[in-house]
């Protein structure tokens, strides 16, 4: 029966429950984003808050006009004129992209391997994959600092096993940044991959074998294409936060060529230039995060329809 669902007759608690996600998005996403945009259009000031103009309702209509007159795009012009920002952005994208590739190469076999395990082992292994998420990012990065120190455990291991003759330098190199990012983002790659891989109907694999496809070719022709949504979700879940990564490059990388996250951090806390920091953040969001999020949303919708 194709009767009309009784949407009009929903009681108010149900209506409220349906709207909670939107309220959440409004309060914790749209409003902060609006505040960020508003600060990015201001000028730094030695005051509390450290930017001007301030919206002053007590001054009436005059207050409102002064506020809007005080807003400008100066900070965005600064972003265009100083190559520091573009260099930092390109470096961030490059590091995030390569780290995402590494994450895929490491995370896919892990996720695939877990789906091949007996059911009970799978739950345990997935929990183990998530363990790094349960420690604070700062603490796990400090742990990596001690491992990667010139006299740290990694070099001790390499020297003991005679893999290297002289201890290589890890800290302040991009390699250290990759290690830190890959380590901390691995759960975000493995989980969506695992979720899509374990949903793949085993009979599709068998059907492919039945039609003359050997095991390794089944992977390329059936398993991999069917796990594409997981690859995409994992890649974006890792890539987007990796672009804005701050702790890892700050503690493990070099200060000569900062990533965009460090630029924002410095502008906020070292220079107390909130408007400049807000402008960088807003630009990053506009050029990178928003298009990717929309792309992901569209793709997921298409995938859902295809099921």
């Amino acid at each position, binding site marked *: 029966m194709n009767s009309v669902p009784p949407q009009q007759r929903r009681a108010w608690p149900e209506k409220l429950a349906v709207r909670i996600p939107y309220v959440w998005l409004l309060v914790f996403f749209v409003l902060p984003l609006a505040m960020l945009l508003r600060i990015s259009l201001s000028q730094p000031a030695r005051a509390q808050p450290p930017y001007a103009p301030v919206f002053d309702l007590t001054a009436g209509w005059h207050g409102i006009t002064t506020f809007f007159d005080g807003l400008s795009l100066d900070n965005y012009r600064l972003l265009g004129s100083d190559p520091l920002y573009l260099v930092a952005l390109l470096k961030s994208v490059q590091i995030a992209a390569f780290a995402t590739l590494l994450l895929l190469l490491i995370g896919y076999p892990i996720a695939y391997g877990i789906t091949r395990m007996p059911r009970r082992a799978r739950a345990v292994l997935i929990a183990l994959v998530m363990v790094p998420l349960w420690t604070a990012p700062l603490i796990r990065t400090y742990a990596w600092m001690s491992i990667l120190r010139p006299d740290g455990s990694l070099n001790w291991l390499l020297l003991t096993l005679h893999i290297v003759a002289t201890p290589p330098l890890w800290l302040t190199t991009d390699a250290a940044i990759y290690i830190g990012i890959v380590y901390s983002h691995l759960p975000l790659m493995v989980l969506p991959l695992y979720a899509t891989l374990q949903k793949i*109907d085993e*009979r*599709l694999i*068998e*059907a*492919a*074998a*039945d*039609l*003359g*496809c*050997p095991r390794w*070719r089944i992977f390329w*022709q*059936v398993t991999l*294409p*069917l796990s*594409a949504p997981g690859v995409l979700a994992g890649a974006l879940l890792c890539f987007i936060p990796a672009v804005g990564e701050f702790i890892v490059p700050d503690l493990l990388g070099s200060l000569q060529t900062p990533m965009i996250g460090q630029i924002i951090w410095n502008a906020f806390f070292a220079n107390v230039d909130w408007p400049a920091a807000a402008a960088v953040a807003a630009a990053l969001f506009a050029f990178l995060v928003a298009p990717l999020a929309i792309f992901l949303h569209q793709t997921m919708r298409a995938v859902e*329809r*295809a*099921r």
Partner: protein
Amino acid sequence: MHARETTRHIAPWTDAHARPLLRIEDLSKRFGAAIAVDRLSLDVHEGEFFALLGPSGCGKTVLLRSVAGFEHPDTGRVLLDGVDLAAVPPYRRPLNMMFQSYALFPHLDVEANVGFGLKQDGLPKRDIAERVADMLAMVKLEGLGRRKPHELSGDQQLRVALARTLVKRPRVLLLDEPLAALDRKLRDQACFELMELKRRLNLTVVIATQDQSGAMIVGDRVGVMDRGGLMQVATPAKIYEQPNSRFVADFVGEVNLLEGRVGDDGFSVEATAAGRLRVAAKIDAVPGATVFAAVRPEKLRIHREPPSPPPDNCADGIIIDIGYLGDLTIYKLRLADGTTIKATVTNAGRIAAHTIGRDERVWVSFAPEAAVVLTR
């Protein structure tokens, strides 16, 4: 036309020297403590349509999967053309299986699904396209080649799955519950189309199903399975008219089972709920042994008056339920000792016999030839 037109009338399984195309020998498969297939042997001949019929969990799917190579039997062998398949992986076996719920590749369109197997064989693209087009025409899916599986109806998906296996020209086609997802009308239609395809392509087919009418329509022979073993293997008519056990009689169609003892003459069953019953064939059991007389409901005659002279097998009872199906009417009646039996009457004339009402006292009778005596 060709000789193949008459294959239906040739019965290779009756020829002791005929070499079967597919031979299953003493095959067993356990999963932990559960026995899925229990020392089963079966020969399927070239051009035969063999139906494995049984309730869910009887082991028919495991049997098919063993033939396809997805299960490794604990004992026994599968031979194709006399060659043991044990060492042959599924992707090298020259037979194809159609899975229940079809297992179509959701990321590929109809053409790519159908061409999948040919691509694996490394055929040139043009040959693949040609054979795929031919096959789509054969299963009446022209013009739908670019659709994705989720854009198709259930019977269209079935056709794609069929085309995908048939395009490989399998030596044996294995069908696992191919019709379960279809509603009844489509199911019967699909059965007839399957038979038509089988004739045109001269296929050898093994179908596993729990749908008895489907099995009876398509099967040259039907093998009734229960708990991992074959209970009876015979033509559909023989399965229905001469079941060899209560299980087969009950699983295939409706049946009234009347328990009793073999009479001294060997031609009667005594002390049943319907009294002493006379049967046409000599009973294969010693006098006094417990047996079951099986009578199909449509073989019972209903009388509103006591028939005179009293026929051989006659009992009276009270009508307790009437089911009017249009083409026929089912009467349930209770005999004197409380046993319920079923009788069906074909509604051939417009004024059907359903003038018989509930709670009415009636007499039922059947000819001695109508009953089969079962010893197990």
